């Protein structure tokens, strides 16, 4: 596919001048909205100033996997957001090009265009997907680069100037266009083909244990997971909102509170989607839980009280909702039915 696009670009290039294109327009590439989404939730958010195009997505994909964005050419976005692990990695926190580990778990990337509030990262600091793509490039414990130097490297590259021209009708490479392209690619990362999706569409059957697990997930007097993590009618399996889910009684990371400056937001982090949990361990904003069993144990008997704990958390004095061993196993089985192997194996999403 990549070779095909490059050939097409080269062919068209023969007929173009060095200046911006005349009469050329990138080819529109609307997102293919899965039936389980169109049946249940409102359309995705696509910025008016960054429509999806074939050329933009192709450029974004190449940039996403290209180590040219890092200062020493050793890491790319994909280094911490690998397709095989649901576009996260398997360490609690991630190390950047200097071998320094950060404090947050790399967030999985999928269904990002359906984050209607458009607050990204665990703490909601990035107010658009384009803005989110800016920060890791210069973060000293991530790609530790400099945008001016990145732009210069892209300008000096034998292929990127033409790829930008085809994507954005200009040969002027900028940070803004670079992040726009990455955001376009990221919006194509759609996961909607789990066993549970097929069950919802009448194409698969759940086991009795998975059905029991769904019941525990939805029962307010059992797991009560659905108030924050979606339900069969909200197949994102997240509310994309911010909650203190009782991880700590004293915060070492203020989360949303550090962004808003409001102490009422201290200890709040964005609810992650429960899709693809089979691939995205470890869990929580700091990757403290290595297994799904530990996550369930946390909500069952590990809650820590604090002034900002979400009032949706129940039985805090008892440590949580007190699930029986079998109930935990059933809940886990249901949660794993939300994983989508076709997503991590999709060649369109791989280098």
């Amino acid at each position, binding site marked *: 596919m990549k070779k095909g696009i490059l050939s097409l670009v080269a062919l068209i290039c023969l007929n173009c001048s060095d200046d911006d294109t005349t009469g050329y327009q990138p080819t529109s590439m609307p997102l293919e909205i899965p039936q389980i989404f169109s049946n249940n939730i409102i359309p995705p958010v696509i910025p008016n100033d960054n429509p999806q195009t074939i050329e933009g997505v192709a450029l974004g994909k190449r940039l996403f996997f290209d180590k040219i964005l890092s200062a020493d050419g050793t890491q790319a976005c994909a280094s911490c957001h690998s397709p095989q692990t649901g576009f996260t990695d398997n360490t609690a926190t991630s190390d950047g090009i200097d071998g320094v580990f950060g404090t947050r778990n790399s967030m999985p990337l999928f269904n990002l265009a359906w984050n209607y509030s458009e607050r990204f990262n665990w703490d909601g600091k990035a107010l658009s997907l384009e803005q989110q793509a800016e920060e890791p490039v210069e973060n000293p414990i991530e790609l530790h680069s400099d945008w001016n130097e990145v732009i210069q490297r892209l300008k000096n590259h034998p292929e990127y100037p033409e790829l930008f021209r085809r994507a954005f009708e200009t040969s002027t490479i900028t940070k803004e266009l670079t992040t726009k392209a990455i955001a376009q690619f990221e919006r194509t990362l759609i996961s909607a083909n789990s066993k549970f999706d097929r069950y919802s569409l009448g194409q698969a059957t759940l086991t009795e244990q998975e059905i029991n697990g769904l019941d525990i997930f*939805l029962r*307010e007097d059992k797991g009560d997971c*659905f*108030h924050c993590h979606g339900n069969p009618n909200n197949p994102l399996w997240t*509310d994309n909102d911010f909650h203190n889910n009782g991880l700590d009684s004293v915060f070492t990371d203020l989360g949303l509170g550090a962004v808003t400056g409001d102490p*009422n937001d201290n200890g709040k982090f964005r609810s992650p989607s429960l899709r693809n949990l089979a691939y995205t361990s470890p869990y929580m904003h700091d990757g403290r839980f290595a297994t799904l069993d530990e996550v369930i144990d946390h909500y069952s008997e590990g809650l820590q009280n604090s002034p*900002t704990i979400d*009032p*949706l958390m129940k039985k805090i004095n008892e440590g949580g909702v007190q699930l029986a061993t079998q109930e935990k196993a059933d809940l886990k089985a249901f949660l794993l039915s939300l994983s989508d192997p076709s997503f991590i194996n999709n060649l369109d999403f791989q280098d």
Partner: protein
Amino acid sequence: MTKRNLLRLCIVLCLCACDSDDSGSNNTSQTSPTFIFTHNWDGSQVSNADFNSFQFTTANGESISIERLRYVISDITFRTNNGEVLNTDFYNLVDVTNNDGLNFTLARTIPAGNYANVSFTFGLDNEDNSQNYLDLNSASFNVPDMLGGGYHYMQFDGKFINSNIEEQGFNYHAIRAVDNPGTNPTFPQDTFFTVNLGPVNIAAVTEIEVEMNIAQWFKEPNLWDLNVYNQMLMPNSTAQILIYENGQNVFSLGEVSQ
């Protein structure tokens, strides 16, 4: 939301076509009134800026903080002085937490004039509650199928100081009262209700304030003890009926500006 029936359509068309006597006014122009939803605690204005602090005291004496408040209203209805009823088939999610949906302009026009009563449904009636609303799904406002499905009428979350002088969460969630949760739930009684705002004169440009006295949810006819009813109220039909009863006087007509 589905259209109810042809009869209602005929009434609407009649209202649009008839002379001023039908609406009790000399003005037959068409208008789309805006409803402004405001909130107070026994008269003191409440907005999301007042959330997350223990500054309210219930009638039972419990100090509470509000952390999340959102609810659905639907089926705004206008009754003329002649007793004719003009139904609208819209709904609106009022999200106080995020300051969203507090102003709702009717997405259709009605004849201007004096109306004997303007009313709406708190929540969704059973027919509407069985529909699939993509925006409410996207807002995660659903009620699980084993509890009858459909949607929350209200999600009101916060904390109170319990009898042990400790902060404790409450989830005052209003839904359709349900018994026997599971594959065949039963419904002891309807718990959506009609809010009558009374007579309203609607001019070419009209804003109708709808006030919610939040304190009323805890006040009467059922003095609400948060130590008894605080969480897991959705599968508790007794609690749902108490919420329904207390909701009857929560809403009132505020200012009507033209």
